[in-house]
């Protein structure tokens, strides 16, 4: 039995490295694209090229956009005095989908874990402290997972912000234990946001 040509093997291997895909689903996806080169493969390649050329990390909040600062950081209407701290960009998108928050964000890029060698300096905590002073922020909302790592990170940030005097709140934990924002439906996120409490 012959193997697929080397270029196609390499494409399958690249797909298989994506989260949620294994070798078998990667092969299926590539076969699907090969069978629809004009309708599916060319547009996908073009979209990848465009995003790869334009994607930027926002130097203010750590989100990803095609501009730096990102659209949210650049929008003066989002400067409502509140910053919502999230673990990653997926959580930011989940909050935006839910339409539950009108202020700006701060994306940490992870949670504290000595076991996984992620320390405070690997997260964007000093940048958050600096923003609170510079942007005249009155409230920091910690929308972090209800896991040990998430809550340790929340505790750490609350302590780091204590000298600034800013109000620090946490999402109400009606949220399932260990639940991450990305998995919650919009109504749940909205309810957790409205019922937030002083941390």
């Amino acid at each position, binding site marked *: 039995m012959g193997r697929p040509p080397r270029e196609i093997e390499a494409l399958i291997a690249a797909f298989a490295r994506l989260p949620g895909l294994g070798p078998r689903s990667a092969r299926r996806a590539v076969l699907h694209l090969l069978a629809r080169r004009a309708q599916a493969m060319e547009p996908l390649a073009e979209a990848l090229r465009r995003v790869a050329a334009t994607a930027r990390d926002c130097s203010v909040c750590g989100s990803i956009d095609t501009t730096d600062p990102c659209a949210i950081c650049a929008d003066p209407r989002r400067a409502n005095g509140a910053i919502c701290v999230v673990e990653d960009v997926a959580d930011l998108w989940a909050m935006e989908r839910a339409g539950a928050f009108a202020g700006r964000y701060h994306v940490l890029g992870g949670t*504290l*874990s*000595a*076991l996984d060698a992620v*320390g*405070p300096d690997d997260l964007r905590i000093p940048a958050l402290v600096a923003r609170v002073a510079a942007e005249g922020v009155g409230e920091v909302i910690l929308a972090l997972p209800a896991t*040990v*790592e998430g*809550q*340790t*990170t929340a*505790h*750490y940030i609350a*302590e*780091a912000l204590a000298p600034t005097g800013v109000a620090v709140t946490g999402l109400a934990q009606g949220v399932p*234990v260990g639940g991450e924002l990305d998995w919650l439906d919009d109504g749940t996120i909205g309810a957790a946001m409205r019922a937030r409490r002083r941390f």
Partner: protein
Amino acid sequence: MRRRAVRGSPQASAAAVIRSLRIAGFRSHAEVRLVPEGRPVALWGANGAGKTNLIEAVSMLSPGRGLRAAAPEDLARRGGPGWKVAAELAAPGGDRAVETWAAAGEPRQVRIDGKAAPQAALAGVLRVLWLTPAMDRLWTEAPEGRRRFLDRLTLSFDPGHAAAAQDYDRAMRERNRLLRDQVADARWYAALEAQMAAAGARMAAARAAAVARIARALAAEAVFPVPDLAVTLPQDADDGGDLAAALAAGRRRDMAAGRTLAGPHRADLSAVWAAKGVPAALCSTGEQKALLVSVVLANARALAEDTGQAPALLLDEVAAHLDPDRRAALHRAIGALGCQAFITGTEPALFEGLDALRLRVTERGGESVLEADP
């Protein structure tokens, strides 16, 4: 789902009844079908015949790694494709079908009433308590074994105990890593210690409630020796009632030790034979076993009262250690609870007076064979 017993009703506590049981590819058992219909099952046979293997299979109907705390890869029949245990249960709310299995090298799966379910959901269908020869030295050996026993007792009353213990353990392992890496960030320690204090308080409260509940149920014990149980901490693990403060104060000491010293992860379960005032560790082997039997029976009675459903009892080689009076008392207790019991021994004479489905277990060419007793 917990069901409260209807107070005053003559059938206040129904037992979980295993109607039928199918075991496939589990250790020495290629294929076993049993129809206990709630009757106790007495298994007898020579050493190595496969008696413990069979009740270990039954223990997989509860969450966790079973009564041997075995590594998952040891459970499947050597060279086989995987194992499966399926049971039909008659519970107070109606019949339930429970299946659990693992293909070789794959994680264990659970299906309840035909629907995929998390392993933890098993605890809501059937509670399983056990007593095994590995626990014979429980009172004399290191505290880890007693702590595991205490946590299983606690878990039987309070399924939420597992999450508290997991959170505590996770936060402590994080903190131990900081200690070993000589990290000095006080804020990071404080954040982890706050998690440990919150989870540790839930753990300690659940353990104390379980021990108090067992103590109340032990008051009804007439034949077996009754222990005074207490959760204790070694002196250097005592937090003086404020774990967060004790951890903060102990950082330098813990850094020198390379691990966290204070906290409920070092708890121990102490037992003193109440009538004699003798610590369990100083009792004879038979007395130590009898103390364990009374605790397990009390646990079963308490669960029957609190949940309206007596747990299944797996008693491995228990009868051999007991004198004839206590053996008879154990058989009566099983009858009174009306619980689904599995009991093993080397001789059929050990089950005299027990109304049970008796099965002889023998080993033929590396495979266990079950025969109904004539």
